[in-house]
């Protein structure tokens, strides 16, 4: 049975709601399921568990925190990634901090989902951000699934986790379909990466939709005798340091492809961890959005500032040559 990434997220929500009456959804236009993430859930669970909110992101994010403090497990859908900027205080400074500040008196199990993060073709400057590194920096658990199975499994784990978790579903991944038996869908633990393709010459670390790109580059390069290992951390924070260093111990070469900005982004963290812990045969490389990137509207310009396969191939050749 073919299952799309978006449908897998939808299934995860449905299963989580069926499993636990404390789970409920809130967000904009989720009753009619404008993004399709919540398709069918209003009919199945009723309006009490699928709340359409006014355009009041700050208040409804804190509202979810309050509901979580009272024992619920809210899941918020954010229509566009920059809404996370608007509620940054409410997530980083409120939801995240309650547990420690109260000396462990409470927990805030809220899940924030962005179905369609990163560039959405033609949505331009204010709708094309991919701010997962920001949440990793402040210490909020953050996942970016790459496959339908992981989309399902990580969203389920995020909802079950007792802390706030941000789930980025890159727009470039929503349409991915895999042949899957529904029975094989299981929770995927937070903080555990996977080797998406084993190889021996270089480790390419990739997240979300870029895992596909990394795999197809690996395919292509295998034709010219280059063996690329693709490591997909799946969780941005906490990073699977063991998985990463195990891979690097084998390949001793590293390229990270990352759809966030270069400076102090996810790729910077991977390079830093690797520099602290691993030995290399050549300097590692980052393939990222440029610093300060604002995505221009015109399609060719938008594409030009996104990390892509060509840049990845160039970077792989560079780390192999330098050795």
């Amino acid at each position, binding site marked *: 049975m073919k299952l799309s990434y978006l449908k897998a997220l939808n299934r995860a929500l449905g299963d989580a709601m069926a499993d636990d009456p404390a789970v409920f959804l809130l967000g*904009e*236009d989720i*009753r*009619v399921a*404008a993004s*399709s993430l919540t398709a069918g859930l209003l009919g199945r669970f009723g309006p009490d568990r699928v709340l*359409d909110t*006014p*355009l*009041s*992101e*700050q*208040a409804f994010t804190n509202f979810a925190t309050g509901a979580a403090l009272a024992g619920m497990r809210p899941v918020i859908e954010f229509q566009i990634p*920059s809404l996370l900027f*608007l509620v940054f205080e409410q997530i980083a400074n409120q939801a995240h901090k309650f547990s420690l500040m109260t000396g462990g008196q409470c927990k805030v199990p809220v899940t924030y989902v962005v179905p369609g993060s990163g560039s*959405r*073709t*033609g*949505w*331009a*400057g*204010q*709708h094309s951000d991919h701010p997962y590194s920001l949440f990793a920096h402040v210490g909020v658990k953050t996942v970016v699934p790459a496959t339908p199975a992981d989309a399902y499994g990580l969203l389920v784990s995020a909802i079950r986790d007792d802390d706030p978790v941000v789930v980025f579903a890159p727009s470039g991944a929503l349409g991915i379909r895999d042949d899957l038996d529904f029975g094989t869908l299981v929770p995927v633990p937070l903080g555990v990466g996977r080797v998406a393709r084993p190889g021996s010459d270089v480790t390419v670390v990739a997240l979300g939709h870029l895992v596909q790109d990394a795999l197809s580059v690996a395919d292509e390069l295998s034709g010219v005798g280059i063996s690329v290992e693709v490591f997909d951390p799946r969780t941005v924070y906490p990073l699977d340091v063991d998985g990463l260093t195990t891979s690097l111990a084998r390949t001793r070469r590293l390229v990270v492809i990352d759809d966030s900005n270069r400076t102090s982004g996810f790729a910077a963290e991977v390079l830093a961890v690797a520099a602290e812990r691993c030995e290399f045969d050549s300097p590692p490389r980052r393939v990222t959005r*440029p610093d*300060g*990137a*604002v995505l*221009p*509207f*015109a*399609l*060719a*310009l*938008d*594409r*030009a*500032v996104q990390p892509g396969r060509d840049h990845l191939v160039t970077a792989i050749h560079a780390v192999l040559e330098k050795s």
Partner: protein
Amino acid sequence: MTRDLYRTVRLIRRFEERAIEFVRSGEIVGGIHPYIGQEAVAAGVCAALRPSDVITSTHRGHGHVLARGADPARLLAELMGRESGLNKGRGGSMHAADFGLGILGANAIVGAAGSIATGAAWAHRRQGRDTVAATFFGDGAMNEGMLLEAFNLAALWRVPVIFVCENNGYATTMPVASAVAGSITGRARAFGIPAFTVDGQDPEKVLAATASGVDRARAGKGPTFLECTTYRFDAHHTFEHRTRLTYRSTEEVSAGWSRDPVEIQGARVAAAERAAVDAEVEALLDAAAGSALGSAHPDPAAALEYLYASPEVMR
């Protein structure tokens, strides 16, 4: 003025209809939020402004930009991501701006522009000018705290700004009654801002209401709030043409069409004159389409041009 208002609503209508075609044909990538049905608001508000005034616009902004006098060819080129676009293809539909005309930009974040317009209007006054700002937003934006905060700043500091709420009944699929507790004008009044509900299907009524707000503002009496009741005849966004969302009935949409601003204003213009305006608009839009389609695509190597206004410190 009667004729001018008709020309404006007609221009916006036909621009939008053509833009939707270009979305369908793929010349416009990413779709648009059509303004069809709401033309009277942009037309009436902008007709009350002077060239030296400023506006801010929204995700549903083509009408505002055209009513303010932007070149349709350059707006269309912007929607097509061309170098001759208002923003050199960098902004697209949701960010169209023309600072030469005082258009400080459409804004893709609901509720954000009200405080930007307030700051701009305040600055103009501080600089000794008698500029007024008009800032457009939807009924959905009435629930964004940052917009409500802007009402307070504008009222406290008597800023010459006209807050124009286009109440088209929905925020995407959310009916205004489920989203706005209390009333829209009541919210503005709570900040001490005079607030009026206006028939947003009639450009002349919108113009009259705006004009008295502008007079107040220029006289140093501070902000005015207008709730323009209107209706969106088409989709929230062209994506809705593919995914049918069920949040309003076809009967309701038909009822909306019964108060078409183009017809309301058109009925005030003699048939021959109306035909002449229609022909002129069509010719203008033909030329605009030709110009936009013929305009160069920006060079991807320049993708990050304009990222910083002071780039010299970057390395």
